[in-house]
């Protein structure tokens, strides 16, 4: 027997420890929850997270046409001509960047949900800190050691990683494709995601690419260790097998190497359809930090940001087409996120600085199609510090996806999200909360306002409750939460509250009402 074969034979006889992000492996014991999930179709749901690194300019992605004249004063040098904004079925007020034809078509065929004005109180403008906040789902001033997806997976597979892989869950719980090591998959006790220990390793597993090693003793031993490394990755076989199960994919993908996001999503589609039971995938597209030259001098519809959105749209459209081609479209929901949006006012260098609120895009056959939230309000005379206000906390989106797509019962959400967040109607098949039609019905209704407005020191705030929990908050123009006026149960009807401006400077403020799934944001202006 050759030595290498002998070692291979040894491996077969050994219970392979999992080479995951984690290091200590807890013993697996099947939980009742897991058994329940295993017997339900819900268990095969997959979530694909698309991280847009750098902070995507939401105002040039999902364009509020009803704010167009104010937008044109605030960001004329990067403004998309209104005639070229892609229209969305059912609304004349909101459209998409002209590069996003793929997503437009998906939206118009009922497969896209856009959540407007997503942010969190007191947004952070540092890439690093803001990224960590989004990945851990922490408060602005809170440092959490675990990621939100990691906490979900820990809740779902409480003994992971000891005893994994096993017959119930033979596959990685979460997979990252691309080059980020994501905090999102860090669980409370162990890493829940599979970390590839070589940047090209994932592609190696599927495409058989091997970095060359020098023809020296060093290269010889390095190659030996790499071979053992591949053999000992507990999941390498299942991943390779899943990939090899799929020999044909949709022809809609762009040529390999021309759109990195499409390349990554193509692998995801292949693995999902190939039978991998992995719950969450993370892919990413970088370059959204467009401080300057966001658009070309020749025209605002081309340039850096247009190219990125084009790649995003093209990749998602091809991916969706492939999911249908592979008959797994019902199992997959995708979601984009970015660490922040960008400033309302553009820079002279045809770019935008770090901002706050921005849209999130969910896609899939099972999403509840439509727009959640209203267009952001653009001040007529925007100042350099003005930001898109928060309508929805990003953690509401996470919580809703967990509740409606992964079917985490509402009482259990707190242990994952660590606070109670408003649930939004994002997913079609399991709408446990107010349907999107109710939001649409209420869209024209004035639910909250203040009078007088503008005001100097005090004003009356009036709001309408449909019953249940009401949250009434005031944010300043930077999005900082400066006051929670109301946080409690209010009977159905109209309520009036006296609001005192406690020494805050003159300027634009946002008044936000949240009542169950309904919410509305209004401008309040303080003058001297």
């Amino acid at each position, binding site marked *: 027997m050759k*030595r290498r074969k002998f070692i291979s034979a040894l491996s077969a006889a050994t219970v392979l420890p999992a080479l995951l992000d984690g290091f200590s492996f807890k013993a697996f014991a099947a939980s009742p929850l897991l058994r329940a999930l295993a017997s339900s179709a819900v268990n095969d749901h997959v979530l694909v997270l698309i991280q847009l690194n750098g902070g995507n300019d939401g105002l040039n992605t999902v364009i509020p046409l009803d704010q167009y004249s104010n937008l044109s004063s605030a960001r004329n040098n990067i403004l998309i001509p209104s005639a070229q904004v892609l229209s969305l079925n059912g609304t004349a007020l909101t459209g998409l960047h002209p590069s996003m034809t793929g997503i437009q078509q998906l939206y118009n065929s009922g497969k896209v949900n856009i959540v407007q004005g997503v942010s969190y109180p007191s947004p952070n403008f540092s890439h690093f800190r803001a990224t960590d906040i989004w990945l851990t789902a922490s408060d602005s001033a809170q440092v959490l050691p675990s990621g939100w997806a990691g906490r979900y997976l820990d809740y779902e597979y409480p003994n992971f990683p000891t005893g994994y892989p096993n017959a119930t869950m033979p596959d990685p719980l979460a997979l990252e494709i691309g*080059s980020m090591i994501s905090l999102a998959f860090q669980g409370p006790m162990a890493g829940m995601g599979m970390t590839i220990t070589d940047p090209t390793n994932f592609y190696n597993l599927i495409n058989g690419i091997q970095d060359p090693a020098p023809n020296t003793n060093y290269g010889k031993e390095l190659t030996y*260790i790499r071979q053992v490394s591949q053999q*000992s990755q507990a999941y390498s076989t299942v991943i390779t097998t899943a990939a090899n199960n799929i020999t044909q994919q949709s022809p809609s993908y762009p040529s390999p190497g021309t759109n990195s996001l499409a390349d990554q999503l193509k692998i995801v589609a292949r693995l999902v359809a190939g039978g991998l039971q992995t719950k969450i995938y993370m892919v990413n597209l970088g370059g959204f930090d467009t401080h300057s030259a966001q658009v070309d001098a020749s025209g605002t519809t081309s340039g850096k940001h247009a190219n990125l959105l084009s790649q995003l749209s093209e990749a998602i459209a091809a991916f969706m087409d492939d999911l249908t081609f592979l008959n797994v479209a019902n199992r997959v929901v995708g979601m984009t996120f970015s660490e922040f949006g960008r400033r309302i006012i553009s820079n002279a260098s045809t770019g935008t600085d770090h901002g706050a609120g921005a849209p999130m895009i969910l896609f899939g056959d099972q999403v509840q199609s439509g727009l959640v939230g209203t267009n952001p309000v653009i001040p007529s005379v925007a100042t350099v510090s003005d930001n898109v206000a928060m309508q929805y906390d990003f953690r509401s989106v996470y919580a809703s996806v967990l509740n409606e797509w992964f079917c985490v019962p509402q009482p259990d959400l707190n242990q994952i999200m660590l606070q109670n967040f408003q649930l939004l109607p994002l997913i079609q098949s399991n709408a446990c909360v107010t349907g999107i039609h109710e939001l649409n019905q209420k869209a024209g209704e004035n639910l909250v306002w203040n009078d007088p407005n503008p005001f100097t020191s005090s004003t009356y705030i009036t709001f309408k409750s449909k019953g249940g929990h009401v949250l009434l908050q005031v944010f300043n123009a930077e999005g900082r939460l400066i006051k929670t006026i109301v946080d409690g149960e209010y009977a159905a009807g109209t309520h009036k509250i006296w609001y005192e401006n406690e020494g805050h400077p003159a300027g634009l403020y946002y008044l936000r009402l949240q009542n169950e799934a309904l919410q509305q944001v209004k401008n309040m202006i303080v003058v001297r």
Partner: protein
Amino acid sequence: MNRRDALTLDFPKQQRQDFSNTARTNTGLTPYSGQWTLSEVQHLLRRAMFGSSKTDADYFLAQGMTASISELLTAPGSVPSPPLWTYASNYADPNVAQGQTWVTAPYDGQANGYRNKSYKAWWVGQMLDQSHSILEKMTLFWSNHFSTESYAVNDARYSYSTNALCRQYALGNFKTLTKLITLDSGMLKYLNGYLNTNTAPDENYGRELQELFTVGKDANGVPFYSQSDVIAAAHVLTGYRINSATIASYFDSTRHDTANKTFSSFYGNTVITGQSGANGANELDDLLTMIFSTNEVALFICRKLYRFFVYYEIDAATETNVIQPLATIFRNNNYDILPVLSALLSSEHFFDPLNRGCIIKAPVDILIAMCRDYNVVFPNSSNIIAQYTMWFKMAQYLAIISQNVGDPPNVAGWAAYYQEPGYHELWINSDSLPKRNQFTDAMIYTGITGSGNTIIVDVVAYTAALTTPDDPDLLIQEVIDRHYSEDVSNTVKSYLKNILLSGQASNSYWTNAWNDYLGSPTNMTYYNIVLTRLQAMYKYIMDLSEYQLS
């Protein structure tokens, strides 16, 4: 082909490289006179010590090569104090008070298990706390060469004494060490030498003395010694016993075979004249003189040293240019070890680029070295219970990845140090490699805890001591230079940078994050931003295959 083969071969066989004809060097023992940079220093330290901490590397870099090798080849002035009893809360040893040493106390069956733990913990402690000397590496070498198992010896006092002997003569005279090992109570017990009598000769030690300890078994299948030599040597060695109270060995002439012992042609048909009475003990000197007069002893030991310090493959050029000249030096110096080590470690062959980075690290070269490289703080001697607890934790992790110090698998030592054809590759398999990564991951993220004490890598402090931690490109390059023997591709570097920059394009994001931390080191938000990124970076670096090579 079985199923596993099919799975294995599923991996890129078409790209699998053929290493049957790797680049070779003809360099020999001519003293190295090339550049003396971090690369050379680390190469020397990783092989002569455990790891190459920044402090040590910077120190030796300033010393220059000659002074560095001279200092490394000097044993520390003092002998380490012996292992201590720290297990009073588990068992009251009637003969040893808490905090006192047990190495000379009477045997106690219940205490012995704890004493063995203490012995292993202590040895790990010696390696962790090593001075600027090759002594601990050579102690490991001789302990592996004259291998005994504490489990089999079953009396920690003997195991300790064998270890102490190897440490005492680690840089001394090999012939003397061989004689003392032959008379060592631990070895007499382990290989049944104390049961070897004129009426019931036991061949065990007589065989291993030749096969494993001195001349070796054969050359290309042609045996050196014969079975008659094993029998003759066993008869020479009859009569040694152990005083179980003092644990000293002694010669009992009434058990000694006084007949003449005749050896084979390999030993020139030597006849060792049988002697009676106390003079019977002199036959050992005659036996060693005979064995050490062969050419094979020096060749055998020099090849083993070469495989320990340079690489396991010895081709014809290396045999001619390195092994044979080294063996000549060994013989000409009457088996003093230092001249051999000096010639080898100073040679252009040792520093030849083709001989760098090609040793697969032994478990001690991963675990002990990692703790030293990162200045991991262990409990100190003011809390001996904590200190021994954490030292023993390390011994346990070493055992998990196949190097149970004090308990090698058998009398031949760890297979990776001698077993053809794989040698060092035997350290790495699909069980041990992930566990190595799990250990380094744990040390980076959570640390390792025992009885309320934690040892952990402080990646932020480590980074702060580097040259330019605020520049991601320079930081990554320095970290690579200090962790790997060879540079890595730009793909890997850009991947590492992606971790530091969280996918952003501009270096300034890392620079600002680092400077924010430096400006407010107690700000937990700033600290966590750099901490999480550095943890991910160092984890990645130590998970890569390159980190397994020395």
